[in-house]
């Protein structure tokens, strides 16, 4: 750290209530200046600046803050003898009122503040969701009335991003899931001599539960997060407002294309996921359990029916709608800047994952009730 370029002394030949500041006061020495002044001023009522040759903005701000501090305590601190340049700088950083130089610090929120804010946020969030659903219904009706008002040109590109680009990761994950279920089941089934039932276990698990759910989770992580971030950025950059001023409805221009694209590709990804999951189980069946490929597929044919496949696909459609609507709602409700976009994206993914599991559970309970 550089040596101080100023000197703070007791004013000579004057009353004892004054200190004298000499030299040059710049940002490099501002920390020392602040320390020395706070320690040295005490009850002093004046600071003689006649020996001060130069003063920068930071130091001027500190001197004015000390003056304001003294005034707020009911005392007074006078800055005297400043030469013209120093005086100009002090004037530049002067305050109209003492409170201006010592701004009120933001109070740390207490427990009740936090509860109040959380409640307000929850209510605002619910209002946003209701508003989104209302606007969505209105947009849906208008889209039905005004043919060609939905931005269909964006759909193929969105389908590619949500579907084709996600194929490798969806296939890999579901293949591994099929393999894992097969391996977990193999040991237990071998103990009962029920090796062939690995096809039932893997087939039903993949088709009814895991392929739709795992695919939806991957799509939520890839496309759901992307939708929320994209729409959130558009919201904070006023692009959504700009769309409205151009007479274009953000729902028909942005939300519906995403909805159509996701609803179109998620069932296709789910079918692919079912197939590779079953193939994962087949590898375990052939390698570890000594079952032939024909026996595996014969068993699978008897265990998994078209109703199971349709049930899985129905889930995948509902999951696709859930992912898109939640991510778009969170994106359109984004407030603030970059941090707001980050929160919207995180919140979208968390809410989607929670909703997917809840919806899956509801489907399973409903299917059981109807014996499907």
């Amino acid at each position: 750290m550089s040596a101080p370029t100023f000197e703070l002394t007791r004013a000579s030949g004057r009353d004892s209530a004054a200190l004298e500041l000499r030299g040059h006061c710049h940002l490099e020495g501002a920390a020392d200046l602040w320390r020395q002044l706070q320690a040295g001023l005490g009850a002093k009522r004046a600071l003689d600046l006649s020996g001060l040759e130069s003063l920068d903005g930071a130091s001027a701000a500190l001197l004015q803050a000390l003056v304001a501090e003294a005034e707020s305590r009911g005392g007074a601190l006078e800055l005297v003898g400043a030469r013209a340049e120093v005086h100009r700088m002090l004037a530049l950083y002067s305050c109209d009122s003492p409170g201006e130089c010592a701004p009120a610090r933001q109070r740390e929120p207490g427990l009740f503040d936090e509860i109040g804010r959380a409640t307000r946020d929850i209510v605002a969030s619910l209002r946003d969701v209701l508003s989104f659903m209302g606007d969505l219904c209105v947009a849906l009706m208008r889209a039905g009335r005004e043919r060609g008002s939905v931005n269909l040109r964006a759909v193929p590109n969105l389908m590619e991003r949500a579907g084709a680009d996600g194929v490798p990761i969806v296939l890999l994950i579901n293949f591994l899931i099929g393999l894992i279920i097969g391996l977990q089941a193999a040991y237990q089934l071998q103990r009962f001599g029920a090796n062939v039932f690995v096809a039932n276990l893997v087939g039903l698990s993949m088709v009814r539960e895991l392929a739709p759910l795992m695919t939806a989770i991957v799509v939520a992580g890839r496309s759901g997060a992307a939708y929320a971030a994209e729409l959130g950025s558009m919201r904070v950059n006023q692009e959504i407002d700009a769309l409205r001023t151009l007479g274009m409805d953000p729902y028909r221009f942005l939300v519906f294309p995403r909805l159509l694209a996701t609803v179109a590709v998620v069932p296709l990804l789910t079918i692919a996921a079912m197939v590779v999951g079953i193939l994962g189980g087949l590898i375990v069946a052939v390698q570890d359990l000594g079952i032939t490929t024909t026996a595996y597929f014969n068993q699978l044919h008897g265990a998994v029916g078209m109703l199971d496949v349709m049930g899985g696909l129905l889930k995948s459609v509902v999951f696709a709608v859930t992912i898109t609507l939640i991510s778009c709602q969170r994106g359109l409700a984004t407030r603030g800047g970059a941090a707001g976009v980050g929160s919207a994206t995180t919140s979208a993914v968390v809410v989607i994952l929670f909703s997917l599991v809840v919806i899956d559970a509801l489907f399973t309970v409903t299917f059981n009730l109807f014996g499907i």
Partner: protein
Amino acid sequence: MTLSAICIRDLSVGYGGLAILDGLNFEIRRGSIFAILGGSGCGKTTLLENLIGIQEPLAGEIDITGFGTPDLDRGFPPYGVSFQGGALFGSMTLLENVSLPLVRWTTLAESAIEAVASARLRLVGLAGFENHLPNEVSGGMQKRAGIARALAMEPSLLFLDEPSAGLDPSTAVELDDLLCCLRDDLGVTTVLVTHELASIFSIADDCIMLDKQARGIIARGSPTSLRDESQDPTAHAFFNRLPKTPPQPGVSENCL
């Protein structure tokens, strides 16, 4: 003798190997206010981005070593920069935005940092808005907070991109006064990109005018000399607020 603060030699700037401005040569005097002018899309901001080191020049040399080493990866640069839109950090209050470099690069006590940062905000007319987030204040206020942040470390060189755009006339004049004060009392060198003629005439000591077609400087000198003496038709039109193309016969002058 006035020392040069910045020397630009044979500078070529652009994107992806494509030069927007080529063969630039000029000097900026220490302790002066220097304006970079030109029509939209002529490369003013690109030139500024090269000067502050966030873009690499395609060719040529920018010498600002008189102010210190401008290495953005090693310590605080020897200049303050205010961007067109303010470029404030959205998750921080205005006070925290201005305090940020002081917290990182000085040993000032927390109370002193608060006093200095709030004084900078007061200086740009934002007293009372210290605890607001950027999205809670207007665009003009965000820009002023950006200027306050640029001033936080007491730089002797300031780069301002369109500082007066979007400000009301009174605030714009106050900002001009502040820049003059910084120049006259502290010898701060200011490089500003602007379109505001009133501001240019009242504060700029020197200026250069860039042109898209010429891909370089078409006029240089003091604003008044360029207004009164420039032979270049684009510069003449710019400084005298005239249309680039003469009015068509039959078109009412009131419409122009």
